[in-house]
Structures are given as structure tokens and as C-alpha cells.
């Protein structure tokens, strides 16, 4: 009989091997799914996972990898602190939107000035916007004991309404002949986040890499990271160690909201360009998968963000070249998280054949 036996120590090997195994399993079962849809499974898997990097049009897709990966990584890094501490900010999408709106509003307010200070001010506004939006569920939890999962999630829909009203109202382009949407920030040199559009490089990519490094240092070397890990693993021990649980909630919410807001600002001032009704595409939700796929570890998140970006781009290729429905791609991404969580058990348990012992 197949049994699970608890390991005395978490396995070092499986900590690293489970994400790889999850990707392999996703490919296998994804292949079966595509076969069931009447596609050649090998060709589909190749299209999704390899074509963005190695096909003849890879020159077009590779910059996309940075563009799609950067916001995912940036948001996931912020979320990983809260998730490690047992603070569940599910509403990064809303913080992303609000950060984008605030940052864009600052940039648009200065139009058409070419002051050097405009972009830095936008960055600050974006971070603050996301941070304050995340503070709402944070403060409500600390003060009234509300559930931050529900509140942060519901605030996503509030943020979407806010975005629509901004695109149609206050931030609408006065020269846009009545069409919804703001001026294009990507074409406003003092306000754009682009560094080099040809290779997909913008300030969000830079910030994402910096965030990975800082998060790594904070988690492995700094007492703050230690307290975050401690609070997640043993809340009672954390209180005994002197961690203030309320403060930790606010800091983690603020941090994840701030980074999500930054991601939104960089996106709206670069790849997206303008405040529009359908500006957000779900990075805030996908980043939750990225955070877990990366084991809440900064380097893991970097790799997971790249992988998720790959499936996005590969999915688009498969959609246009093979006529695969978008839902199939979303199922594939869902599978990835599902398999990861499922094989995760191997980190703390070992499989063994044999009869019941204890």
C-alpha cells in the first residue's frame, strides 16, 4: 500500500524539485488536454513553452517576456512577505489599478511640462496609491478583526469601477475627441517608464530585479524577514519573540500594496500607455500563482514569473496559430498551481510502500 510518512526535516531536495515536477506534470496533463481538444499535444506544448524563446519570431516574443514578467514578479515579491506571515492579500489587482491611476494622474497633471522630477513623482504616487489601497483591508483587520481576504478581494471590484470612471471622466484625454481613455503616457517623454522599447526594457523590469535582490536580503539576513517567517510558521512563538502582530499585518499589507501599485504605474506609463477601462489584465491575480510557484522565495518567484510570462505569450501564439481557446491556456495555468500544491506534500512527507506501522 502506498503511504505518506512524515519526514523529520523538510527535504532540501524536494523544496527545489517540486516546482520542476509540477511543470513536468502540467506539460503531461496539459498535453492530454490538448489531445482531447484534437490538437497534436507535442506541437502545442512546444508552441507554448518553446516557441516564445526559440522560434523564428522569437525576436518579437523575447521582449514580451520582460514586459509580462516584470509586473508579475514585482507584485509576487510583495505578496510573498504577507503570504509567509499568514496575511492573505488577495487584492493585489486592485492595488495595481489604484497605483496606476494615482501615478498616471500625477503625470497627466504636469502635461505637457518636461520637468525631470515628473517621473520620480509618479513613482512615489503609484507606490503610495497601492499602499493606501492595501491599508484599507489592513487597518480593518487590525482594528475590527475583519477578514483581509474578503475585503482586499472586494476592493478589486471597487478599483475597477474607479478605473472606468477615471478613464471616462477626470483623466480622459481632453484632445481625445470624446473617446474614453487618457493621454498616452508612453508618448510623453517626461512621464514614460520606457527605457528601451525595442528590447522590452522599462523601469518596472529594473525595479523587479532590485525587488528580488532586496527581498532576498531581507528574508535571509534581516530580522524583519526572520519575523515574517516566524509569524507565518508559529504565530505564538512570534508573539513570544516580541513580534507585534498588528504592526506586521500593516507592514506586509503596505509592502505588497506598494509594490503592486508600482507595478501598475510602470505598466500604465509604458506598455499600456494610457488609463483605459480595460487597462488591467489580471496580473494581480496571476501573481498569486507566481508567488506560490516560486515557493515564496525571491529567486523562485523570478523564475516562476518568467515561466508564467512564457505561458501567457505561448498561449497567445497557440491561440492565433493553432486556434486554441483562451480557456485552455487558463486551465493550463490553473493546472500548474494545482500540481504544485499537490506535489508540495513531498517536501514534508515521503512516499513509501509497505504496511501500516504506527
Amino acid at each position, binding site marked *: 500500500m502506498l503511504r505518506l510518512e512524515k519526514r523529520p526535516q523538510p527535504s532540501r531536495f524536494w523544496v527545489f524539485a517540486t516546482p520542476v515536477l509540477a511543470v513536468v506534470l502540467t506539460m503531461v496533463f496539459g498535453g492530454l488536454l490538448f489531445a482531447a481538444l484534437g490538437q497534436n499535444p507535442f506541437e502545442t506544448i512546444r508552441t507554448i513553452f518553446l516557441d516564445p524563446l526559440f522560434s523564428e519570431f522569437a525576436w518579437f516574443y523575447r521582449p514580451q517576456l520582460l514586459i509580462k514578467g516584470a509586473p508579475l514578479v514585482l507584485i509576487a515579491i510583495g505578496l510573498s512577505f504577507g503570504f509567509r506571515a499568514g496575511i492573505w492579500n488577495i487584492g493585489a489587482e486592485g492595488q495595481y489599478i489604484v497605483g496606476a491611476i494615482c501615478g498616471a494622474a500625477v503625470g497627466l497633471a504636469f502635461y505637457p511640462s518636461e520637468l525631470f522630477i515628473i517621473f520620480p513623482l509618479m513613482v512615489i504616487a503609484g507606490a503610495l496609491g497601492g499602499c493606501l489601497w492595501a491599508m484599507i483591508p489592513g487597518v480593518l483587520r487590525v482594528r475590527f478583526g475583519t477578514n483581509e481576504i474578503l475585503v482586499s478581494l472586494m476592493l478589486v471590484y471597487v478599483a475597477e469601477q474607479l478605473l472606468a470612471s477615471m478613464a471616462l471622466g477626470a483623466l480622459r484625454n481632453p484632445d481625445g475627441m470624446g473617446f474614453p481613455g487618457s493621454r498616452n503616457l508612453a508618448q510623453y517623454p517626461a512621464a514614460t517608464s520606457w527605457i528601451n522599447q525595442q528590447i522590452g526594457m522599462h523601469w518596472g523590469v529594473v525595479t523587479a530585479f532590485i525587488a528580488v535582490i532586496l527581498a532576498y536580503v531581507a528574508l535571509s539576513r534581516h530580522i524583519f524577514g526572520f519575523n515574517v517567517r516566524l509569524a507565518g510558521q508559529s504565530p505564538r512563538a512570534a508573539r513570544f519573540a516580541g513580534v507585534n502582530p498588528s504592526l506586521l499585518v500593516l507592514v506586509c499589507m503596505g509592502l505588497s500594496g506598494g509594490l503592486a501599485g508600482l507595478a501598475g504605474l510602470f505598466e500604465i506609463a509604458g506598455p499600456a500607455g494610457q488609463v483605459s477601462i480595460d487597462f488591467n489584465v489580471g496580473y494581480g491575480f496571476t501573481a498569486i500563482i507566481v508567488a506560490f510557484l516560486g515557493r515564496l522565495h525571491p529567486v523562485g518567484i523570478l523564475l516562476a514569473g518568467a515561466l508564467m510570462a512564457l505561458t501567457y505569450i505561448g498561449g497567445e501564439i497557440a491561440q492565433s496559430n493553432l486556434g486554441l481557446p483562451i480557456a485552455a491556456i487558463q486551465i493550463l495555468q490553473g493546472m500548474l498551481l494545482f500540481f504544485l500544491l499537490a506535489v508540495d506534500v513531498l517536501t514534508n512527507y515521503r512516499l513509501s510502500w509497505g504496511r501500516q506501522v*504506527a
Partner: protein
Amino acid sequence: MTTPLLRLTGLTKAYPGVVANKDVSFDILPGEVHALLGENGAGKSTLVKTIYGLVKPDSGTMALHGAPFQPHDPHAARAAGIAMVFQHFSLFDAMNVAENIALGMEDPPKQAQIAAQVRAVSDQYGLPLDPDRVVGDLSAGERQRVEIIRCLLQDPKLLIMDEPTSVLTPQEVTILFETLRKLSAEGTAILYISHKLEEIRALCENATVLRLGAVVGTCDPRQTSARDMAELMVGSKLHVPEKADKPAGETVLSLQGLSAPAPHRFGTPLREITVDVRKGEVLGIGGVAGNGQDELVAALSGEMRTAAAMIRYKDQAIGQMPPNARRKAGLLAAPEERMGHAAAPDMSLTENAVLTAATRQGLTRRGFVQWGKARGFAEGVIKAFDVRTPGPQNAARSLSGGNLQKFVIGREIMQAPEVLIVNQPTWGVDASAAAAIRQALLDLAAKGAAVIVISQDLDELMEISDRFAALNEGRLSAPRPAKGLTVEEIGLMLGGAHDMEVAHVEA
């Protein structure tokens, strides 16, 4: 010679990486009270689980009344007449006594019938217990009686008891012992597992000593000194803590009407605790678990804040001070629950060292953890307190309870506290390690620190305390010099003894 009730022959059981039982053979005679002795991890639990059908041995045989006995699960063991009272009770708080007992039965009769049986058995064995009371309202001793009566209703031939007295007051222990003696006189054999050697000497006729999974000796506890038994258990000379007589120093910690509401539904409020703790003394606080021990530790460690003036430390009102500021000032604490409170199970010992020692040992610089220094500190604790582990990189949960306890207590003592509060410092720790911990606490006091030891082990408190006080329902009795206190006086101080009735033994 009589046929043994249960004969174990060459029982061996190995788990990955450890041999729990190695060729264990001994006999249990009908009606005898047989002690099973051994350090933590000596293989006592595995052995009794084997007898109770929870563990299958790799090799070896058991014979019950001379016939082969291979229980494949506890049902089979119970059917054969073997019953076990576990250290941790498996009772539902919201149900009454009779309902709880019915739950453990294969084919329970009507409630009224069970109630009548419970009354009959409780009367017969002097175990006062009302079948209609809700378990949630019972004391630990009364809960244990529920478990015992549940076993007795099966009319067992062999009753296994795992550390039964750890939760009892002296009076309750007396009641329990009378019951066990009566059972034994009626022919029920009892396999008695305990750390408390004096109890074993008072109760048992025969003892088997396990060390590292193997039988290392047998003795008649009535003829053997506790010290000799302890040395048999650990395989080396036992160091008995020595207490130096010294004059009391000045007051360093003063609780002035310390009161606090219960922190959660099952907590106990602290009520008007007033006591002065002096430099160089050990204040022992006794009491049955759940009378405010955890809350008192939390109030002193800073996990639970109180009005500032309720706690004065060196003329400073610290009731509102957070934990790390108290540590910096020299007030350290070690809570009872090791896993998840005093230590984080999934973190390494190095990380667990940082948990409380970061501030006082300077393990951080500008907020950055000095991992090298932390590792050095953890290694120091491991070495000084003989923590058995391959190294500080191992997760806390990989250590046995006793070893982790040594680490947790050692971590605080090595920080040279001026006041140390420990809750249950030697709970579940084997005799030699317990002696080492007690000695370390005494040494700390000898160096001028004030030590508050909260424990349910009265022998321990009598051994190391200068003054003794009892905690009962959140109130602390006035402390009295420990020297010369009798067991009866202590029992009265504890005040919480329920139903001080001893079995009516008909000789």
C-alpha cells in the same frame, strides 16, 4: 512458578534511522504492579504501543496466558483484556461522563445503564465521579478517572498507565494509588510508566529498565533507591542538584495586584497576584495545570500587557513594556509549550536561538542578523546543555521533547538573565537531563539571579525552591519558605484538590 500474564520475548522494532526496541523480553505476572522505566526515547512508548496493538514488531513474540498474542489493532488488544490510559486524554469537553464512556464502546448500552455501571465502578474502586457531569467542567484528575473507569468497564487483565500522575495533586495521587493497589489485589496487572521514581518505589513491585531500546536491568523498586534506579536508566552516575544556603538579596521583581482578564475562552484570569521576588532566590509556584500558569508567564514575558504599575522590575513599572525591551533589561522567560511557543518547530536551532536571544546577545546589527554569531550562540547552548542533535542547522521539530526543552531552557540561561521565569522546566525530560536543568537553575540563582519556577512537579519544587507559593484559579497564595513544608500543607495551599476521598479498601 505461576504462568506469567504477559510474556514478551525478543521484541524488536526499528524505525528508519533508529531502533526503538531491541530484543526486549520480560514477564508481567498476574496482579503485579510492574514499572517500566527509561529515559525519553528509551523505547517505552513503542513497547506499550506494541502491547496495545498500535505498533507491529519487526520480530519477537508475545504470549498472553501462555498463548500466542498478536493484536493487529487496539480492538483486538482490548478484546484480549488489555486496557490503556494515555497521558493525553481523548475526551470530548462538551459531553458528559457517561456519553464519553459510551463513545469508546463497541456496542454501548443505554445511557442510564452506563451511568449505573459508572457509579458502581467508581464506588467499588474509590474513584468519585458523577456520570452526569460535563467533562469540560472536570479537573484533570477527574478526567483521568473517566479514562480509568472507561478501561475498568472492560474488566481488563492488564492496565497500562502512561505517566498518570503528571497532572494530579498529591491528594489525587493518593486516591489513584489506592485504586491501583486495589485493582492489583484483585488480580489485575498494571504496567506503570513514570518518571517519578519515588512514586514507583511507593507503588510497584517490579521494574524493568529500558535504555536505548534494550532492557538493561530489572529491580525491585521497594528495595532499590531512587538514585540507583536513575543511574540504571541513564547508565552513568547521576548528579543530584545541590542547593547552596544563602541569604536573600534585595527585591528585584515585584508583582503588585497583578490582574488580567482571561486572554481567550479557555484561559484563566489572573487575580490580584502580589509577590516580591528577591535576588538569588528560587520561587517555586505549584498548582494544577490551567490555574493561570500560562497567563502568568505571558504577563511576565510581555506577551500579555497589563497595567504598568502591576509589575515593577528594579523600580521601573514594566507592565506595558514589550517582550524584547524586557529581555534587554534582563527579564527572560521560557514558556511551557516547547513546540510552537518557546520554539518554532520548522526552524533550525540557530534560527530558534535568534528567536529570543537577538536583543540581549546582540545577534543583530542594524537589523541584520549575524548568522555566524547566532550559530555560535546556538552551538554554545547545545554544548553546555548536552542537547543531542547533529548540529544547530537541524530543525527544532527533529529533536525529542526533552532535548528541545534543554535547548529552550539553556537558551535563556546562557543569556545571563537577572530574572528568569520558567514554566514546567523538566516536563517530559528524563531524569539526568532534569537534574541538569534544575542544577543550572540553582547555579543561576547562586549567581544572584531571581528564578521563578512554575511546575506541577511538587518534588521538583521542593528540591530547588527557597520559597513556595501555589497558584489556584489565577490567585497566588502567600509564599512560604519551602524548607519544612509538608505534603499535606502543600496540598492545602493548592486548594484545588477535588473530592478528597480515598478508596475504601477492604483488606
